[in-house]
């Protein structure tokens, strides 16, 4: 067989993770980006900086700290246990939480730029047409931010697929739970199973290429001159 059963399992796990993380980050990151792009609060600067900080730590070190925080003695771990949710590490939800945290800047930064670039004027037009700020956000700001949203989604999705430092640490490499493709390829390489590693990497690259090509269609064409 071309790919082993466990390879295929890891592919579906990865897609589920990446899709979920991207979806969650759209929910979390877009409001954050909106606030960061428009607020005049003095917290804007610091928060802007904090968002990019997860990038600075090596993934497996970040994973280590997340493990400590979400473990039984960590604050998050105590909280989730108190809430009856159990502990997050070594579970799929734990992976999702960690990836969301780590990929946050990939979502926030491009969307923030897109919001900032459109300026106030389209929102003013929407307001005079009776659109509430929330309404205008959905019907004007989001559509106009499409290139930024697309970039953010691509970066988040691709990065979640490729990231494994955090995942390995938090997830524990459990089949069906946290053995995502990146971990699987890594395992193959570590075990010197190069043929399998090449195959799986090739599948991921081709698949991702196709997905990225399809996503290109959402990228608006260049402005066409016009009057």
């Amino acid at each position: 067989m071309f790919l082993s059963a466990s390879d295929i399992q890891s592919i579906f796990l990865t897609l589920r993770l990446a899709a979920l993380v991207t979806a969650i980050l759209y929910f979390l990151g877009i409001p954050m980006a909106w606030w960061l792009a428009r607020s005049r609060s003095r917290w804007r600067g610091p928060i802007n900086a904090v968002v990019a900080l997860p990038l600075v730590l090596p993934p497996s070190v970040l994973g280590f700290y997340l493990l400590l925080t979400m473990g039984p003695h960590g604050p998050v771990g105590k909280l989730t246990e108190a809430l009856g949710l159990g502990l997050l590490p070594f579970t799929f939800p734990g992976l999702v939480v960690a990836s969301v945290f780590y990929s946050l800047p990939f979502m926030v930064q491009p969307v923030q730029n897109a919001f900032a670039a459109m300026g106030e004027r389209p929102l003013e037009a929407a307001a005079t047409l009776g659109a509430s700020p929330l309404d205008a956000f959905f019907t004007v700001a989001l559509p106009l931010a499409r290139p930024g949203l697309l970039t953010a989604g691509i970066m988040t999705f691709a990065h979640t697929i490729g990231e494994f430092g955090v995942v390995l640490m938090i997830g524990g490499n459990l089949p069906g739970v946290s053995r995502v493709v990146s971990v699987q390829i890594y395992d193959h390489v570590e075990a010197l199973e190069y043929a399998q590693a090449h195959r799986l990497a090739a599948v991921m690259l081709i698949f991702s290429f196709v997905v990225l090509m399809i996503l290109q269609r959402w990228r608006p064409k260049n402005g066409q001159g016009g009057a």
Partner: protein
Amino acid sequence: MEEIAARFALTYPGFNLDVDLHLPGRGITALFGHSGSGKTTLLRLIAGLARTENGRLTFRGQVWQDEDTWLPTHRRPLGYVFQDANLLEHLSVAGNLQYGAKRSCGRQVNLDAAIELLGIGHLLERKPAQLSGGEGQRVAIARALSTAPSLLLMDEPLASLDLTRKQEILPYLERLHRELAIPVLYVSHAPDEVARLADHLVVMAEGRVVADGPLAETLARTDLPVRLGEEAGVVVEAVIVERDSSWQLLRLGFGAENILWCRDSGQLLGSRVRVRVLARDVAISLSRPQDSSVQNLLAGRIEAIANDEHPGLALIRVQVGKTPFLSRLTRRAVDTLALKVEREVWVQVKTVALLDQT
């Protein structure tokens, strides 16, 4: 009558706006003033797009802004035509129009009529980037109407339109304001637009209101027409008393027995109309002229002789019955004819522009 009361003070570097305005609750109020005099700024304050401390704004008794109140723009029932069209780039023309229509809170608008009149029916599928300057402006006008507003704010809506287009759109706007009975604040640089459309005139200079009153009154003030340049003149209310079908002319009666002839534009006999008579179109003679192509002759008496913008010119106010007319003459003509206040003269009106039915 006073249904919009606005008091604002705002400072930009090198510019102070300080207005305290009371505007009628219906009819078109023209905002007239030099470039940079604060017209757009005032409109933005009224729309709630800009905000000042200590501003106060009431509309039909409802407070839109004071110390405690701030009604955000989208809750103010207004339509706004931006100085640049400011269309939503991601929507087609139709999408832009529907955007407002969908949010009109059930108020009905006949958008089809607006679309047809503004000549944008063939553009509905286009994106704003594919429109010419004037096309964009026309779409912006239709869009402002799409919300069925209670107050229409128009920032030079016709600036990039040609005369023919303007002449198609102006009557529509006139009709609209009569039919909808909503007040319109209309920024314009074009005195002919102002004279034609406005019921009320506000003249701004350097962030302040320098004149403010009903159109006819304000236009007939001999201290003001200076700002209107070639367009100084008066507006006369009259009744259509006769139709001359063979010559396509209408006879207009005003005051006790005075008449004016003007081109027939299809108005009903007996209806009340407004006509505009420009000072430059009014000549004066001491005796009744003979054999002249000028058909509108009125007997009147000189009320005032004032300076005009050019030292060689004078503005003469002649009372014809109860109606004042302005005439712009050279100072030399005033001298040659020995014109003086109280003197009885003949007024020759070369052209009369029918404005609208009232």
